[in-house]
Structure formats: C-alpha cells, structure tokens
C-alpha cells in the first residue's frame, strides 16, 4: 500500500476549557472507506471538519493532518451548501465544467444527469434541473449537496452524515454509489451514526466516543424489532387531514391525502425522499395552505400558523426536519427552548428556564451545552433541543419530522421513549416522520406510506411485517427487514 | 483705449433660468439689463449719481411748464442699417404703454404720465413728448428700466435688432447671449469682437473667473471678493452705494402707526454691527434716507446712532413697552436672514422681542408688499425722485411702508412741477427730513457691489448697477 491519502495524527480539539477531541489518529488510503461512527456529540463532525481543513468557531484544533488540497466535504447541514439563487442544473453544470472544461454541452448535460442518478434522482431530470434548491424536499437537498461534490470528482471525500433524511432506498442507492466510487480509488471518510451504512459500505469503522476514536467491532447487532402492544384508542381522531392536496407553484406535492391520528396514538409516516412527508407535517403546522381539503385538530379546521392564538399554537407543535436552521443563531439554545414555556404556557422566565433545562437534560443535553449558542452545538444536539422546544408547549398534537436522524441508537431510543412517555401521560397524538422503518415498527400504532404525494398504504406494523403490505416491500427489503425474524 | 481687438470676451452674471429674456420692454433682471445694454440704447441713461445723461438722444428740453419735452435724436443706425428716427421712439412708447403680454412692461408705470395722443414726431430726428401732468424729472423716467428704444414696427424680439454696441448672434435662455461688435455704433466700434453674456450661480461665477472661463464676473459675494483679491491676475472692483438695505415698517398698522415707535426702531439698530456682520463689512452704515451718493441726497442730516436707552424712552412715550414684532424675511438676497437675526438681538437690548419669520425667497417681495408688520429688503440704485414716486406716494405701486402722507405727496407734486433744479433740491430735502424723522424705512446699510475681471483688460465696467457705466463692455480694451 502506498501513502495514505488522508492521515490524521494526534488530533485534539478543545472549545474553551472543554476538550472535544483527544489524540485521534487514523489513515484513509486511496480506495478505502473509513467510517466514523459514534453517538451524538462525540466529536465526529469536529474530526470531519478538521480533515476538510475547516475551523469550527470557538474550537481550537491541535495535531497533524495530511490531506489533499482539494477534499470534497459534505457538512452535516448539507442543504446549506446549495446556493439558493441558482438553479440546480446550472450549479451542477458549472461544477462538471470545472472538471471537464472542454466538454460539449450535450456531454455535460449527460454528465449532470449521471451525477443526479448517482444520488438517486431517476426521473424527470429536466424538471429537476430548472428548479431552485428551495423547491426540493429535505432529503432531496441533502442528495443534491452530495451531487455537487460528486460532480467535481475529487480524490478524497469527507461526508458528514450523507444519509440523513434519506429513505432506505435512496440510502441504499447512495451508499452503493459511494462504495463504487471507492472502488475507483477515491478515499472516503464517512461520518455516520447509522449501522446500516457502516455495514453496507463494507468499510473500516472507527468508533468515536467521548472525543476519542478507536477501532470498532463490526457494527453492533441491530436491535430486533419489537412490536409495541398497540392500544388503538378508537376515539375521535385528534389530528386529521381530509382529502388534502397541496401544490407548490406548479409542482403537486400531495394528492387527496386523508389521514387521522387519535389521541394517544403514534402514526408513523414513511415514504421515499420527496414523497410529501414533510408537506403533511407542514399542513398540520400551518406552514402550507392546502389547495384542497382541510387539516383539522379536534374536528376544528386548523388556521394558518400566523393566525393561531397561543392555545392553538401550543396545541400543535412541529419539530423541523432541518432542526439546526430553525434556531436563531444569536440567542442561547436554553433561552430559545424556554421561550416556548414563557409564551405558550405563561411560565415565568425562571420557571421556564428550569423546566427547559430539565427537559434538555432528559434528552441528553447538559446545562453547559444548553447555555451555548446554536453554532456551538452538534447537529444531533440541536435536533434534540428542537424537540424540547416543541415539547415544552405541552402539545396535544406533536409532529416530528425525522427527529432521530443523526442520532445513534441508544440515544434515539431514549428520545423516542421520552416521546412515548409523553404521549401516554397526556394522550397526545404523535405523528412520526421517519426513514428509520426499523425503529418506527417498534413505536408506531399505525404506519402510513406515501409515494409521490399519495397515500399508498395504511397499515399496522404487525401487518407490515407479516408481508401483507405490498406498497412498502421495497423499503423493507432495503432495510433488511423483509424477512421477519 | 484703442488697442488690439479682443477676440471673445465672456462676462458672467447672476442667472435666473427660464425667467430670463431679451425683450427690452419686459426684462427686469440684472442679466437682462446687461444683455439689453449690449444690444440696445436708451434715450437717456443715468450716471453713477443717478443723473440722466443723453445716449440715443442728443438733448431733451422741456417747455416752460414741464408738460412737453422736445427730444433730439443722435445720428445713429440700427443694426440692420436703417436710421434711428422719431417714429422709433413713438413706437417704443406706444408699445410699453399698450396692452401687455403675459409679462408686463416695466416702464408702464414710470411712463404713465406720457400722453401719446399729443406726442408727435417733429421731424425725423426730433420728437415731442406730451405729458398729462407737468414733470421736470421726465428725463429720469426716460432712463428707467424698460425704456430702451426698439425699432418702429418691431415684433420679433427673439431676434433683436437694436442700436447698441453689439449685434445679436444667438441667445439661450438661462445660458448665454452671443453678440458681435457693431461696426457702425454711434459711440465707436467696440474692441470686443464677440461678446458672450453668460448666466451662472454665485459660486460658479467665482469658479469660472478663477478658472479662466470668464473674463468678467458680476455680483460677487463679499467672501468671493476677498478670495479674489488675494489671487493674482484678477482685478476686483467694489462699487460703493450699490445696494441699499432696509427694514420696512408698515406705517398704517400697529405698532408702527405710532411715529414714536418708528423713531424708536431707528435707534434700535446697531448699523455698524449689521454692516460688519450681515454685509461682511463691505458697505457703510446708512441713515434712514435713500440714495447716498446720488443727486438730491440729504447728506447733512446727522447720523442716526444706536441708542437702546433712547429707543426705550421713545417706546415708553408711545406706550409700547414690551413690544413684540414679527419680522418677515427670506433668503432673497445675501445677508437678509443674518441681518434679521442680528437685529432681533439688538432690539432685545431695548426690551423688544422680534420674531424672525423666514419665507420663500422667490416670492418674498410680492408677499412683503402686503403682509407683515416689519419686513426687509434691498434696493438697487435708483434716482431719488423715482424712489419717492414709486415707493412713497399714497398711490405708489411699491409702497412698502404703506406711507400715506398728504404733506409729502404735495411736496412731491410741487417738486416735479418746479423747473429750477435748486428749488427742486430744496423740496426733496424737505421730504427727506420728514422721512428721516418719522418715515417707515429704516435704511441701515449701503452695500458695495463687487465685480471682478481678468487684469488683462482695461476699462472694465465698474459703475453702480443700473447706471450707465455698469455692464458696459463697448469700451473694454486690452
């Protein structure tokens, strides 16, 4: 073997007095895939950024890193790397041209289509090319951000959670593609918390834990799906969509979707990236106005967000898919979480703060972390803070858009336990949007599958596992769930 | 004189945009006058003491009672070669006394006494003008604004044909007049072959002169004059008694209907300080009578002095203590607002509160004519009889002090009808005494008029504005 493409020696990092990383060393050779695997807040992003040659505000990095001058880097907040003012086709075309300046237009177009296919955009490339980033779903944007990197064909890539928000099929496609890329001699450093990715990539995994990185045993056995004893309440549906259709300009995102969640029930929503899951959530949150149909809470039509009063706001809470970008960067996380309590429940600021800190602690955030500004927290930490912010309102309807992406298994279990506990205590209706079918199977009372904006299946986990649900077999197989164990 | 000819001479005057014109019957701005002076001639023009001197006329003689004036014309030619004849004079008079266009003829009121039906051409070069009432000051009236002679039958005043030293070439309103030397000018061909009269704002006039884009700049601020004095290659002319600054008390309404209040005000003004500050020292204190340095000026009257205590006493006498007065002013001329505020400070020493009200400079004089108690103004040089006639008679169109005094009116009528100049002077003196004692005008300063020219030239015009020697470029030489 030749020289490693990426060599990290004695990497340390500290933020103020806190040590984030300690003596991390590893190599990535050409054609090799190294995954950094570990719990949220362990320091994975810090390592990835260091390798990509980026400094993190407030963090001082020590140690020695050898890496090629040009490393393709996908930050954890992938969508943020898309220029909002440029059409995707143009943006990718430009990057392709960087690599092949003399290419003819047609060839270039073909190359762009190829890159898009690599990140699992199969259909209608023309329509896609003309769109601006804000016209895509969260997962689609992450993939587009990845596509930008692939378009430049770098010799080394650092990817921070590329599979966030990807459905299992897309995830499979993307990981396969990355594996193939490694086959062409590209060195890949991958950050993930997702054991499936680790496994599929056939990579060398490093376990990042408390700021240290060590070799890892083959990924832990994925937990066996344990089905929840479903207790269908059968009562009046608390949250309901009636024949809802949503359009974004000329793109139709939902067609005639009906859906009901009763109090005390968890309904999981699954579907390919771009299927319309977030749009459903946004209907409840009052962020989009259905072109047809209504969203109801307690039988009463939901108003657009800006028209809701405090009680109505508190009743329906939504956890953003891109949690990090829903925080005001200039105000401490704790204050932002507490604000919910102050505004929606009329708590005093001291009480609200205490309650916020308690809740955050329960979700695994220390007081010190909570008192930082958002840029000082890891992606997973912010996601939990976003959940806390919603929970503090004591909502009757909680809509979670991929709250557990980017969280390692024990932590996500803890989060979901908390949500379950809350649901049971208060009889709230919970809508869980997730790509993590495995987890969802164990948590949801019912699962709604979406495809191209239509409900294709509404089923229970049990029925699903028993193979009765045909619409989801693809997703199931991609997650190796096809064969019930 | 006599030297080489001057190719092009550019003189820059204070411009006024679309207002400007070259119709000699209506133009009333200084720049209009400068242009008219280049293109036309009047029968008479006034000299620096405001005494009429013959120009296109050779002489003017009244009959015994001053009701008919016989005027002999000079042997002069129009720019188109025609001779100047009596009919031209009669046509000019008929024009300015006839129906006006959108812009009135200025001389309509000064020449109001002319009786056209009785006037006639005696021969080609003699004209007899009849007046409806006697006036031995008629020649002064004939030298006023708007009286320059136009050709008989002239209609097109956009392409003027005059008798003046320069021949019209082109005119752009608000920008420039170009004129060329008229070889057959009766007073000799000008040395300047091509004369440009340009209009520009105050600062631009200074800049243009300093930058060599203009050879002559008129109406410079005191500061500009000071600046230029310090720089070489430029000669600054400062003509005294060229602008008379005043406060005008409306004598027909309280508190100024009481002569003692007027007397008090005359003692409330520290004229020296006003001149020093408002006129930046470039002028002299005035003495509440108009026309220092002009014919008939009463210069034997003792100077009114600043005496706050005396003013207070007078006010007490008038029962007008703790007086509050509105002083209406506007940035209509340089130094107005400054003078108003300064005067307010000075008056405060006599216990009088003066509220300075600042109006719009564009319409100030029209507004000030009728409104307010105390207004201010500046007057260009004007023959003293004209000053009396246009501002101080009961029916005067410009009666800024609403001065209505039968004794005064009678004296004026008597003066006009008096053929002896000495006796007239005595009557005017009487009138001055009245005004000095209890008139409505508080004349506080006689400003100098600053103009400057490149030192390359000689015989640069430097008369008081409105007078013969002001803005006369036909004698300029190298």
């Amino acid at each position, binding site marked *: 073997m030749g020289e490693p493409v990426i060599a990290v020696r004695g990497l340390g990092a500290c933020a103020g007095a806190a040590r984030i990383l300690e003596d991390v060393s590893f190599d990535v050779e050409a054609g090799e895939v190294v995954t950094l695997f570990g719990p949220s807040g362990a320091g994975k992003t810090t390592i990835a950024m260091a390798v990509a040659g980026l400094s993190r505000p407030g963090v001082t990095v020590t140690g020695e890193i050898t890496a090629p001058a040009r490393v393709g880097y996908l930050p954890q907040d992938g969508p943020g790397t898309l220029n*909002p003012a440029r059409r995707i086709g143009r943006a990718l075309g430009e990057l392709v041209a*960087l690599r092949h300046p003399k290419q003819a237009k047609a060839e270039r177009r073909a190359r762009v289509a190829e890159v898009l296919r690599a990140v699992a955009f199969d259909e209608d490339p023309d329509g896609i090319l003309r769109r601006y980033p804000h016209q895509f779903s969260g997962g689609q944007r992450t993939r587009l951000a990845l596509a930008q990197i692939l378009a430049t064909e770098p010799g080394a890539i650092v990817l921070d959670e590329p599979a966030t928000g990807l459905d299992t099929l897309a995830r499979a496609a993307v990981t396969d593609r990355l594996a193939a890329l490694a086959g062409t001699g590209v060195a890949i450093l991958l950050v993930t918390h997702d054991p499936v990715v680790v496994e599929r990539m056939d990579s060398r995994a490093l376990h990042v834990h408390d700021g240290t990185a060590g070799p890892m045993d083959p990924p832990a056995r994925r937990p066996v799906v344990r089905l929840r004893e479903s207790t269908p309440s059968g009562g009046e549906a608390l949250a309901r969509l009636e024949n809802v259709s949503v359009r974004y300009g000329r793109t139709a995102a939902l067609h005639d979707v009906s859906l009901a969640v009763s109090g005390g029930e968890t309904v999981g929503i699954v579907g390919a990236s771009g299927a319309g899951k977030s749009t459903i959530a946004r209907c409840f949150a009052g962020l989009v106005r259905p072109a047809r149909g209504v969203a109801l809470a307690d039988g009463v039509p939901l108003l657009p967000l800006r028209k809701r009063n405090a009680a109505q706001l508190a009743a329906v809470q939504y956890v953003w898919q891109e949690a990090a970008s829903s925080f005001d960067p200039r105000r401490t996380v704790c204050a932002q979480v507490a604000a919910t309590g102050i505004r929606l429940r009329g708590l005093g600021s001291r009480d609200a703060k205490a309650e916020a800190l308690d809740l955050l602690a329960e979700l695994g955030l220390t007081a010190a972390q909570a008192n930082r500004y958002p840029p000082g927290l890891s992606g997973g930490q912010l996601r939990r803070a976003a959940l806390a912010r919603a929970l503090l309102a004591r909502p009757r309807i909680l809509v979670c858009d991929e709250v557990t992406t980017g969280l390692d298994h024990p932590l996500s279990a803890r989060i979901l336990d908390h949500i379950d506990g809350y649901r049971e205590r208060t009889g709230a209706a919970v809508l869980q949007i997730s790509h993590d079918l495995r987890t969802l199977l164990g948590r949801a009372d019912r699962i709604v599958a979406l495809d191209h904006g239509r409900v294709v299946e509404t089923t229970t986990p049990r029925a699903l596992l028993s193979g009765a649900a045909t619409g989801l077999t693809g997703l199931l197989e991609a997650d190796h769930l096809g064969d019930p164990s | 004189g006599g030297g080489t000819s001057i190719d092009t001479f550019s003189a820059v005057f204070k411009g006024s945009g679309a207002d400007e014109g070259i119709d000699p019957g209506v133009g009333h701005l200084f720049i209009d006058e400068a242009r008219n002076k280049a293109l036309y001639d009047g029968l008479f023009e006034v000299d620096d003491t405001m005494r009429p001197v013959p120009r296109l006329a050779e002489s003017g003689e009244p009959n015994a009672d001053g009701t008919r004036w016989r005027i002999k014309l000079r042997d002069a030619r129009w720019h188109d070669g025609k001779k100047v004849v009596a009919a031209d004079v009669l046509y000019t008079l008929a024009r300015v006394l006839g129906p006006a266009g959108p812009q*009135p003829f200025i001389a309509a009121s000064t020449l109001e006494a002319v009786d056209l039906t009785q006037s006639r051409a005696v021969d080609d070069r003699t004209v007899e003008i009849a007046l409806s009432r006697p006036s031995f000051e008629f020649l002064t009236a004939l030298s006023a604004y708007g009286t320059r002679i136009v050709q008989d039958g002239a209609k097109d005043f956009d392409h003027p044909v005059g008798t003046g030293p320069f021949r019209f070439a082109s005119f752009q309103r608000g*920008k420039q007049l170009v004129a060329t030397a008229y070889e057959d000018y009766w007073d000799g061909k000008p040395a300047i072959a091509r004369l440009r009269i340009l209009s520009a704002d105050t600062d631009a006039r200074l800049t243009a002169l300093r*930058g060599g884009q203009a050879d002559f700049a008129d109406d410079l601020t005191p500061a500009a004059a000071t600046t230029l004095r310090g720089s070489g290659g430029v000669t600054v002319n400062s003509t005294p008694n060229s602008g008379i600054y005043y406060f005008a008390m409306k004598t027909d309404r309280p508190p100024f209907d009481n002569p003692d209040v007027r007397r008090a005000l005359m003692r409330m003004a520290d004229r020296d300080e006003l001149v020093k500050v408002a006129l930046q020292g470039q002028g002299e204190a005035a003495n509440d009578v108009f026309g220092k340095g002009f014919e008939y000026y009463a210069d034997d009257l003792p100077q009114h002095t600043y005496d706050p205590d005396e003013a207070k006493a007078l006010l007490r006498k008038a029962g007008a203590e703790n007086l509050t007065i509105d002083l209406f002013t506007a940035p209509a001329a340089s130094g107005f607002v400054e003078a108003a505020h300064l005067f307010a400070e000075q008056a405060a020493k006599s216990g009088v509160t003066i509220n300075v009200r600042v109006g719009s400079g564009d319409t100030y004089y*029209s507004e000030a*004519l009728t409104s307010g108690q105390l207004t201010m103004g500046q007057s260009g040089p004007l023959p003293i009889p004209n000053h009396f006639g246009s501002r101080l008679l009961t029916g005067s169109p410009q009666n800024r002090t609403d001065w209505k005094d039968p004794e005064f009116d009678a004296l004026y009528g008597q003066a006009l009808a008096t053929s002896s100049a000495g006796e007239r002077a005595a009557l005017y003196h009487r009138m001055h005494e009245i005004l000095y004692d209890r008139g409505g005008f508080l004349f506080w300063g006689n400003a100098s008029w600053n103009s400057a020219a490149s030192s390359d030239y000689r015989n640069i015009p430097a008369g008081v504005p409105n007078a013969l020697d002001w803005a006369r470029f036909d004698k300029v030489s190298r």
Partner: protein
Amino acid sequence: MTVPTRFVLRRLVLGAGQVLILLALVFGLSLLLPGDAADVQNSDLFSARQRAETRQLLGLDVSPLTRFLTWLGHAVTGDFGTSYASGEPVSAVIAEPFAVTAVLAGLTTVLLIPVAGWAGFAAGLRPGSARDRVLTAVSVLFDSIPDFVLAVLLVAAVALGLGWFPATSLGVDLPMMLEEPGYLVLPLTVMVARVAAPLVRLVRAGVIDVCAQPYIEQARRLGVGRVSLLLRHIAPNALGPAMQELGRTGDGLLSGVLIVEAVFVLPGVASALIDAIGDRDQPVILAIVLITGVVAIAVNVVIDLLGQLMTPRGAWA
C-alpha cells in the same frame, strides 16, 4: 416564462396610477409654496394691477384643479403646455436639461457599477483587512463629506490648482461637452464618489454576509473559479439591498445631482426643476416630474424584477 410577464404588466398598470398620484402630489406641494408665477415675475417694479393682469394672461385665475386636469389632458397627448416663466413650450424648455442629465446619469451608471462593485467586493471579501479598512474609510468619508465641499475642493485642487480640467461647463453646450470630455471629468467624479459611497457599503455588507454562508464556502472548496464565484455565486445573493439603493434614481436625479449641476454649471434636470419650482412654473414642474417619475418607476420595476430573479425564494403570484 409567463409569470414574470404578469408581474411586469401588473406593476406597469400600478405604475400608471403611481405616476398620476405623484403628479397630483407634486402639484399640490407646489401650490403650498407661497405665491404663484405672477408673484415671482413681479419684480420690485410692478404694481398689483399688473400682477393681476399677468395672472389672468397666464391662466392662473382658474381653479388649480381645472388647471391640473387640463394639463393632464394635454399631457396624455404629449403636449406639456407652455411655461409660465418663459412662455415657451414646455417640451422645448426641458429638452436640453433632459439630454444633459441623461448623459450625466448614463455615464455615472456606467462608471458606478464597476467602481461600487469592485470596491464593495474588494472590501467585503476580506473584512477587516487593511484593504477593507481603507475602502470602508474612504467610502464613509465620501459619504460624510458634503457634496458641495467635495465638489468645491475638487475644483480648487484639480481645475484651478492643476488646471487639468475646466472648472465649469459655463457656456458650453452638450455637443461640445461630448466632444471635449474634459468638461465631464470632474462632475462625473463627484457624482460617482457620491453615489458609489453608500453603494460600496451596502455591497460590502451584503458580500460579508453572503460569504459567511456555507454555500459559498462549499463552492470555493469545490474549486469554483474566482470570477464565477463572485459573479454567479456571491453577487446575486449579495446585491439585493444595494440594488434597492440604485433604485432611488427618481429622487436621485431630481435632488441628488443638483449640487453637481450647480457647481459645474451643467444645465440638467435638477436645476431645471429647482428653477421651475422657484418660478412656480407648474407646467414645467409637472412635465419634469412626469418624465422622471416614469423613468424611476420603470427602474424600480426592473430592480424588483431582477431582485426576484436573483433571489427566487418567494413564488410569483
């Protein structure tokens, strides 16, 4: 695309209304000034009777509303009436001012965009650097020196001191000016300095903000060339606010250029307007405001259109 067409159409329809309101407002304001054209023309020498005659001859004795509507009716047919002050047709009065201003404004814009763009980017790309400090200081300095001081100093130093350029354009008409561009150098310098100063600061602020965005970092990392990075990636996101400032042409042309016109004796629209206001010459005032208003509103439409195109976040509707 059909949607922007609709946007433009609707804005143009609204624009017609805006111009109408603008004209009405300006007319109303001009009435609020004391006196009228007859009063202004009245010098120290006219009597009240003469003024009344003048008023009648100018048609000032009819009600202002009638005057306004009559003017408007004629203006629609392209006839702007007759100037009160000079008695000439308004179109003749304003032709040269507009030509001068068009040249001045056109050249300024041509120079402004590269100057302000360059300086704004140069400063914004390296905030805190010496270059930035200098550029910021210079632009703030230009912004805080009154234009007339700048103009007068420039004239004193460059024209009178060094004699490089003529100090004023006194008595020079437009064709001559174009033949001998020396006349335009100083006025343009002042204009560009004045207008560019605030723009530089807005561009700089925009650039700094945009450069901190992850998509710019990413583009840079992916090896996008400098030029493309500036023009295609940073500029569209950073220039919005600065363009809004550019959109102030309406008032800018009318009042901002005034100083330059006055100092350098350039007979442009601004001086023409001020003269007309001074003369209470309403036909001329209205004609000037009509034309500049149309231009300004059109420019605003274009700028809003560009703004939408450059940052396509909101939907057309």
